[in-house]
């Protein structure tokens, strides 16, 4: 089975979907001539031409809206944000146009659009370029939100997103683009709304997504050395959430830790905890704990940044607490 990078997995997904459906096009800053700010769209301009791989001015609100309008006119746009930090400018179009169009038109106008780009912190990019946007987007009815952690999931989810007739937000990660993973040949589609157990165990549930999947897996290794077998659940989708998968894991282990790279207050993890306390109350042997980014804007200094982010050590400590080992 070939091993490819997360970046190339996305590239394959875009290429395959653009070959499959002439209505699919890519639009964003530097996606064409520059080959993509993070090289995700390398080679696409050459293959599909300037009409289908469109370089935009720096005008997030504008080109997000152009994407929505194009979807209203029958096309299937993929709009790239150089990073999701800049998408804040485009929120009016994402929320008030894309998410609500079908509903307020009484079902007449669907918006089959994908918004994608790197999300969350990288290394020392400081406060304005390091935010995780999951909870802002997952909050909105009318949107779907996915966050692939591996190359396989990246390809499968981006393809599924492009084929979905709803606005789908794809949260990637600069720190993920170079990671490698195995991908079989042939068509890969990962259903939106389906989590995956990345590692099985019966002692404690670790629920994670995107970059925190690697953190949780490292924590699981450390816990294994301490005689604890963790069940690592990769959410993959943040809206909709795979509630049965979450509950099945907690039924098995009776205790959970939720790991996320967003801020704690009203983060996506709070929604996961709500599901567990509501529907798995009698299975819980301990309160559900969360490991999140520190509740501060991301600092520039390397050590402070490390302190701010979730780490395997923090996850292990939380797991030990819910196991009453500490």
């Amino acid at each position, binding site marked *: 089975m070939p091993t490819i990078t997360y970046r190339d997995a996305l590239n394959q997904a875009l290429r395959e979907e653009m070959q499959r459906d002439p209505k699919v096009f890519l639009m964003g800053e530097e996606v064409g001539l520059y080959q993509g700010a993070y090289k995700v769209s390398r080679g696409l301009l050459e293959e599909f031409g300037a009409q289908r791989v469109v370089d935009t001015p720096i005008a997030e609100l504008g080109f997000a809206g152009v994407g929505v309008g194009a979807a209203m006119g*029958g096309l299937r746009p993929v709009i790239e944000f150089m990073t999701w930090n800049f998408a804040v400018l485009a929120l*009016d*179009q994402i929320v008030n146009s894309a998410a609500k169009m079908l509903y*307020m038109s009484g079902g007449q106008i669907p918006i089959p659009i994908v918004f994608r780009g790197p999300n969350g912190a990288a290394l020392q990019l400081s406060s304005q370029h390091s935010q995780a946007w999951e909870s802002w987007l997952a909050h909105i009815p009318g949107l779907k939100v996915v966050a692939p952690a591996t190359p396989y999931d990246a390809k499968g989810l981006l393809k599924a997103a492009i084929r979905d007739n709803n606005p789908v937000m794809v949260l990637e990660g600069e720190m993920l683009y170079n990671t490698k993973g195995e991908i079989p040949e042939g068509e890969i589609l990962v259903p939106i709304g389906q989590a995956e157990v990345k590692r099985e165990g019966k002692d404690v549930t670790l629920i994670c997504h995107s970059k925190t999947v690697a953190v949780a897996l490292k924590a699981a290794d450390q816990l294994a050395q301490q005689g604890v077998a963790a069940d690592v659940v990769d959410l993959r989708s943040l809206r909709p959430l795979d509630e049965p998968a979450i509950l099945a894991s907690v039924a098995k282990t009776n205790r959970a830790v939720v790991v996320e790279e967003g801020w704690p207050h009203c983060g996506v993890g709070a929604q996961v905890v709500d599901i567990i306390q509501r529907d798995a109350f009698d299975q819980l042997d301990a309160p559900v704990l969360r490991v999140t980014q520190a509740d501060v804007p991301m600092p520039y200094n390397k050590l402070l940044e490390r302190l701010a982010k979730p780490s395997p050590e923090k996850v292990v400590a939380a797991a030990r607490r819910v196991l009453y080992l500490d």
Partner: protein
Amino acid sequence: MTTATAQPAEDRAQTELQRRMLREMLLIRRFEEKTAEAYALGKIGGFCHLYIGQEAVAVGVSAALRADDYVISSYREHGQALVRGIPANTVMAELCGKATGCSGGKGGSMHLFDAAKRFMGGHGIVGGHLPLATGLGFAIKYQGGDQVCVCFFGEAAVNIGAFHEALNMASVWKLPVIFLCENNRYGMGTAFERVAAVTDVVEHACSYDIAGEIVNGMDVLEMHHAAQRAIQRARKGGHPTLLEVRTYRFMGHSMSDPLHGVYRTKEEVEEQKKKDPISQLAHRLMEDGVLDQAAIDALDAEVHAEVEAAMQFADESPDPAPDELTSHVLAD
């Protein structure tokens, strides 16, 4: 009165067009008056923005459009929706929130939609739909069509970022979009000159290297001809146009806004009412011998009846079923 047989065909088409435009303006006028009454009686809730005084703009433009062209507008959209062909019944039902409304009762006054008639809403964020218009133009060009997209907005939207981003991209990509600014001089309670460094909206066309024109929006024929020019420009070469249409609203910004007294004087409003586009066209038609007062009254009565029927239709229509609350959040 000139007999019909003595007129050349072209003239006959013209007078027929003008007669139709008079009827359409009357329809909008009577519909909006009825809407005001329904609002005061509590049948219509929320925000309600009336088009009274601006009828010539929607009517003049609509007469130049094809059925497969796109129209997109702001929240002051009842007039544009009606002349695009959405029946008065379904518009009034939507204003009253009924299941038979053009948006199923889930949009309301600010979100009228009819995908089959290519009336793409009905948008509530000032300037928010301008990038959508550029996107519709993008889709037209991408798919190799010769349709155009007309985007109605008010002059206050000229100050918001989305206006500039949308015009820039429409120009750079040469998209068939007509940006039609209905300059009625007041953004809610603020006179344009108090907040705009450049008060001739048409000057913004230069910033984006697109065609621009000022139009007297109280004259439906002038509006019609300007629309035709802009539409041709878009259809033939994919060149966008910025039209600054000077018009005036006789009512307040919305139903909650006073007619005058706070930010404009009663005298000003009365002065503007003398340029009522409906009276202007009616007088011209009478002077040209096309219609006499009795014919105009008959037309008005016909329109009144249509509006009354629409009100009755809305009154008798049911509310959406409770399970409509959760329908159409996501597409299949």
